[in-house]
């Protein structure tokens, strides 16, 4: 790969991130150019990806998406001349976890993508302490831990960052000392940012209620940012977002608009933050479609499709355009007034196929001793 093609891409990607997070340009030449430049870098780094694109029929302005379950079945080796800054993993809730190598620029872009969205939605305005309901990056290489640690560290107004989850045997448990710190901060009037898995926040709130604490009024300027699975996230635990938000709003005596959910994929650098109306907004540095695999094109606005994300923010692994197994409904003109489009999640695909006396082949072949 010519050095100047990487540098050209780097400069375009950074320029893209200088813009406002939410805008609605009629034509977006910068986005298209950055996409093309990113594609050139990826093709040079991954010849297999170039062949894939050739077979799928790539053209200017359209990058065929990689279907994420496929990505878990193929292992692409990063080129030896690419310095890997971090290798992040997905949770593996929908199958095998996926390992994604990030170079410095891709990591920088992931962090910037979250920062731009937070800034545009006024999430981290004043000084605060951050409490993360997840493991810290020293214990977990999951995308959330690695990226959000860096995002929070990038804000000088966040004086303290604590990670509340710790590994205990095969499951996560809450570090109660950190919960005490949180209560103490709140009692001292320090605004807090609570961020992480809803199931873990729920576990802490339920624990405090059991101890007799019926309310913990968070100081003004506090926010709760959730991210992760809502249903069946932990064994035996099912959370409905609406019920959860209401309970949290009551317990923390917090405006519902200060409880927001984030939607993201480990495989994509973009994080979608819900507005006050619960719509997940699409930043200007990415494009999404609700893809209908039956029609092989975008589903019309208002109809369910699979979330497809195209974004030129990742050059260390072919994730420029991905098709997830998350179902969404795509829409435009959110009443909240933010420009650009938005979506509502509609659950995840069930991988269980209709089972008949025709045999699904996978495990049985393994047992027959065939190398796979």
């Amino acid at each position, binding site marked *: 790969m010519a050095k100047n093609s990487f540098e050209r891409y780097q400069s375009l990607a950074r320029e893209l991130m200088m813009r406002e997070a939410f805008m609605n340009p009629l034509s977006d030449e910068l986005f298209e150019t950055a996409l093309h430049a990113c594609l050139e870098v990826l093709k040079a780094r991954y010849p*297999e990806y170039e062949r*894939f694109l050739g077979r799928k029929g790539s053209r200017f302005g359209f990058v065929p998406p990689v279907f994420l379950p*496929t990505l878990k079945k*193929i292992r692409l080796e990063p080129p030896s001349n690419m310095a890997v800054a971090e290798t992040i993993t997905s949770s593996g809730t929908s199958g095998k976890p996926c390992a994604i190598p990030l170079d410095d620029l891709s990591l920088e872009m992931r962090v910037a993508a979250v920062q731009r969205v937070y800034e545009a939605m006024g999430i981290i305005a004043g000084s605060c302490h951050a409490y993360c309901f997840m493991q810290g990056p020293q214990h977990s290489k999951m995308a959330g831990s690695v990226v959000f640690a860096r995002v929070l560290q990038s804000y000088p107004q966040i004086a303290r960052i604590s990670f509340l989850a710790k590994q205990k045997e095969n499951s996560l448990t809450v570090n109660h000392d950190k919960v005490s710190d949180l209560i103490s901060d709140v009692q001292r009037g320090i605004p807090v940012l609570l961020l992480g898995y809803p199931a873990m926040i729920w576990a802490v709130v339920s624990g405090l209620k059991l101890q007799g604490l019926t309310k913990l009024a968070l100081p003004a300027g506090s926010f709760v940012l959730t991210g992760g699975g809502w249903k069946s996230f932990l064994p035996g635990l099912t959370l409905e977002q609406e019920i959860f938000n209401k309970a949290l709003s009551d317990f923390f005596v917090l405006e519902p608009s200060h409880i927001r959910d984030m939607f993201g994929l480990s495989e994509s650098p973009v994080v979608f933050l819900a507005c006050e109306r619960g719509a997940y907004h699409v930043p200007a540095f990415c494009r999404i479609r609700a893809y209908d*695999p039956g029609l092989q094109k975008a589903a019309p606005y208002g109809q369910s499709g699979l979330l497809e994300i195209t974004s030129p923010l990742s050059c260390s692994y072919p994730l420029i355009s991905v098709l997830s197994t998350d*179902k969404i409904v795509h829409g435009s003109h959110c009443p909240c007034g933010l420009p650009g489009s938005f979506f509502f999640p509609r659950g995840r695909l069930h991988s269980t196929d209709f089972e008949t*006396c*025709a045999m*699904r082949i*996978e495990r049985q072949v393994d047992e027959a001793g065939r190398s796979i």
Partner: protein
Amino acid sequence: MTGEATGLNTSGNRPLESTMAELKTAQRALQTLSQREIAKSLAKLATLWREDSRWYREALLLARNSFGEQLCRLAVAALEENLSFTRLCGTMTLELGSLNALERWQQLGPECTGHVVKAYPLGVVCQILPGNNFLAGPMAIIQCLLSKNALLLKPSQQEQGFLELFYRSMHEAELDPRLLAAVRVHAWGRSDQHETQTVQKLADAIVVWGGSAAVSAFPQHLCKGKVVYYGPRLGIGLIASACATWEAALALAWDICLWEQRACSSPRLIFVREDEGQCARAFSKLLDDALVVMKQQIKPPPTDLEQSCQILTPRELSCWQDDAELITGAAESAHTVIWTKNPPDELGVGHRLVYIIPYASDAELLSKLRPYSAMLQTVLLSAKPSQWAGLVDGLANLGVTQVISLGNGLPGRLGYPHEGEYPMRQLIKLVAVNLQAGPFMHPSAGNPNGPSVVDAMVNSRSILVECERQSHD
């Protein structure tokens, strides 16, 4: 019954234990009918299921959303044929050995004087039906009644209503009440452990059709009676030398679309012999075109978002692999043809998905098939007459139990072996009686007071006559 369960429930809200007890009584009453009488009564149904009858038209309406009209027409025609008195009697003769195998003691052979055998029904049989074949229910009813077993049917959650339709037609046909009393339908879901355990404890035999989940719900060690497993299995196509023609492609396209690749006999891996050139790749393209043509004849069922996604992974994977090629170009195609040098590691069910795999010799074919030998069932074969016998021998040794010529995959036929055995044989037990004198009965064998061989022979004949008399009574 929970909300998860679907379909007809003839027991109403009564507990399954009561239904099983009633079936036990009904099964005893069934013994008072002769096989011939049962066949005669069942044959009344054939008239009802004639082409363009009310039942026929209702079945077509039901099938429209699942397997399509053409397949339904063929299936109902097959059902009518299966229900003819001649076919019913022929099937009993073929599968059970005679038209009165369940009623009379049969001598084993002229050289086996004193050896007699008689078939006995197993009792109350529970059939766990598959969701991919709407003839499975009627076939189970016919086979169980002909073998004088009472029957509890558990419909699949994919049951479209065909079983209920057939059951209603049995009543309209005014079958002998003893037959009607011996059939019950009871629907329950996988989570209804109580129902599953009741069947495990009370059924004299269980026949399980379906996938691994259905099979694993009825492990033999937890069941009182015998368990017969039908599935899950793998069907393949085999195009042996110089047969990779448009006609072969069209015939194979028929077999692929027939049960929407959901049947154990559906061809899903297609092996094409390459003597010279890239015959398999060329055949892949022919098959792709043939599947487009077949789409007009057997319309694919509508798919929802979840179902459409099942096909994305194999299509995408073929675009990443060096030794594979996605042949199906049209994005909106209802089918997928993938050429690949080696059989895939994973293979889903349905969606008209086929892999075309080249092979150069019979030895290579068998070697590529060996990993699947435990699950092999049907081969759809296109080969020269001179190749057939040798190929079938090789495939049978590998585990194949059915070979059908290409394009001949048709709805179920009564009297046809399934998974290496006649289905009705699985529903009976043969009781052998040896009335010959043993060596110690002969004076010369050291028992001077015992009856002679001649005496024993006389005794055996008289016992045989007595047995026959009792059977007739």
